[in-house]
């Protein structure tokens, strides 16, 4: 009986193909919009996470001053020393690599080209901590670090700006009052999650920067990479304790430095993306509601149009619930087909838009299933009223209906 009803419903839909199509258009658009929003949102979330992990794996950043961001308070906060970084590497068990850094803005000159960029002085661990790989050449060695030799590793942007297509390895790059030999080229990482160009950088041994550019022994920040699987929160609190000790902070005083877990950025950003996705999906879901009302409207018209048919069926012996089921199944089949079409449309639209926006295409099967079930549910909810109206017709009146 149910199979028959299904066949009957499909036949009825085919009979009024154009009308059926227009009826379910609301559902199609609603389902497609919801799935597209969620798919693109997922892609954006994954892209953000990937960008964050490109900053470095399990990365903690230690800065002087009370907190990061707007209102950052650096008053009375002395910079770190190399010894602080060494102490962290020695005393905190979960640490994999520690990179003390000192940065300075410079204008680098090669031949007729010049380019303003940032020089970061650090140890060889900087490349480990920052997930950097070398495209060409080598990193500086321990001897060069100790001696503060004028060698540097340049980022892809610097290379492009100063060298064009030329090979930079072995050339001398001039800046301020000295020149350094380019010994390596970093593999490009692209933009950071904050939109900063990570490749616009020059890396030198810490001592070189301190001596020749900064003119002091300060370490501006310390980057710490925590071992895989180790407890980052524990490492963070260990570092905080150690730093308080070394900086002689009394028990009742606030920290004059902060340890920042880059995963927090990831969480904040993915959180924002999620909220936006949910909002847009909610707007799209309104279309599903409107689509449902469209189905109810057409089903009511259909019941009126087919009053005579309902009368015939009743005279022949159809039960109330069989008539109800027939119209209900028709509404559900209609809305489910709309749901299916919506899913197909969403996949196509997401593929195109993901390509245009440069985010990965990640179709969530759960959301797809939920959207489909929801479209079927729309059929049940909005088909029920017209179906019940059909089922409660008086057969005599229905047969007399012209």
């Amino acid at each position, binding site marked *: 009986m149910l199979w028959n009803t299904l066949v009957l419903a499909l036949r009825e839909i085919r009979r009024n193909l154009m009308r059926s199509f227009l009826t379910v258009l609301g559902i199609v658009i609603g389902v497609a919009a919801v799935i597209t929003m969620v798919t693109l949102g997922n892609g954006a979330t994954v892209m953000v996470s990937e960008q964050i992990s490109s900053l470095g794996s399990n990365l903690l950043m230690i800065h002087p001053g009370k907190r990061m961001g707007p209102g950052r308070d650096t008053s009375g906060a002395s910079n770190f020393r190399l010894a602080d970084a060494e102490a962290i590497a020695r005393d905190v068990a979960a640490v994999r690599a520690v990179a003390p850094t000192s940065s300075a803005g410079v204008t680098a000159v090669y031949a007729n080209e010049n380019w303003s960029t940032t020089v970061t002085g650090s140890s060889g661990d900087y490349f480990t901590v920052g997930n950097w790989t070398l495209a060409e050449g080598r990193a500086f060695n321990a001897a060069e670090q100790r001696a503060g030799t004028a060698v540097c590793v340049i980022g892809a942007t610097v290379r492009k700006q100063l060298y064009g297509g030329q090979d930079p390895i072995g050339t001398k790059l001039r800046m301020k009052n000295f020149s350094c030999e380019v010994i390596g080229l970093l593999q490009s990482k692209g933009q950071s999650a904050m939109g900063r160009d990570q490749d616009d950088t020059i890396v030198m041994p810490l001592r070189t920067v301190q001596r020749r550019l900064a003119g002091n022994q300060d370490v501006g920040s310390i980057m710490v990479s925590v071992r895989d699987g180790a407890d980052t929160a524990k490492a963070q609190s260990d570092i905080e304790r150690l730093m308080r000790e070394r900086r002689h902070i009394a028990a009742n005083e606030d920290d004059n430095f902060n340890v920042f877990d880059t995963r927090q950025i990831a969480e904040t950003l993915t959180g924002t993306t999620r909220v936006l996705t949910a909002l847009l999906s909610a707007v799209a879901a309104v279309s599903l509601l409107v689509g449902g009302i469209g189905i109810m409207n057409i089903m009511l018209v259909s019941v009126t149009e087919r009053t005579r*048919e309902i009368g*015939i069926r009743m005279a*022949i*012996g*159809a*039960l*109330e619930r*069989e008539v109800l089921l027939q119209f209900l199944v028709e509404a559900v089949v209609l809305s489910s087909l709309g749901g299916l079409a919506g899913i197909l449309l969403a996949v196509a639209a997401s593929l195109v838009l993901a390509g245009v926006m440069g985010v990965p295409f990640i179709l969530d099967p759960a959301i797809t299933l939920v959207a489909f079930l929801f479209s079927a549910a729309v059929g049940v909810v909005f088909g029920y009223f017209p179906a019940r109206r059909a089922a409660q017709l008086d057969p005599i009146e229905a047969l007399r209906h012209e």
Partner: protein
Amino acid sequence: MSAIPKPGAAPALIEFRGVTKIYGQGQAAFQALDGVDLTIREGEFVAIMGPSGSGKSTAMNILGCLDSPTNGSYLFRGVHVERLSRDQRARLRRFYLGFVFQGFNLLARTSALENVELPLIYRGLARAERHRRALQALEAVGLAEWADHTPAELSGGQQQRVAIARAIVTDPAVLLADEPTGNLDTARSRELMELIAGLNRDQGITIAMVTHEPDMAGYAGRLVHFVDGRVDSDEPNPHRR
């Protein structure tokens, strides 16, 4: 009063006992039937006649379990139909009654075969069996070769014969025909009446037919006249064709 069954007579299939039908209430109330007693036995062919407004259509609706009497009893094979629920009456129609209407009432854009199959679908028959029986019924009305045609492609007479096939495909206990020739010309009407009379004569199907044409009533074995919601006369047809 209903006639006392003669010894050896067929058992009563349909029995109206003081059936009254009133439409509306108060001032607007209209009494369509006023204490009708009527018995139809297995194998009878009864023509119900009368002027319009005489209550014959109302009687037919109650007979067809589409409507319930306001007062009185309607017994179908001894069952009090007036005590049945809407669904129970639907089941009674499904298993015991066959309908033929004046306006044919076939499903549009649906082939003759599928129209005839319809009651079998509600009986829950398997597809192959439905097919076989529907074709058989179409053959019985001489339309086997028109099985794939939709009502729009058939003449009025042919449509009514499809309707008859649909009514008899379930082997009903009684065939109820409401002005079956009302929309047909005289020649087609005659053909159709021959078909209906043949069903009664050859297959013993009980038939109750409403008509206002004496010509068509002539095929029946018994003539019941309604006037003002009462049975005016009820007698065998002396000139049965």
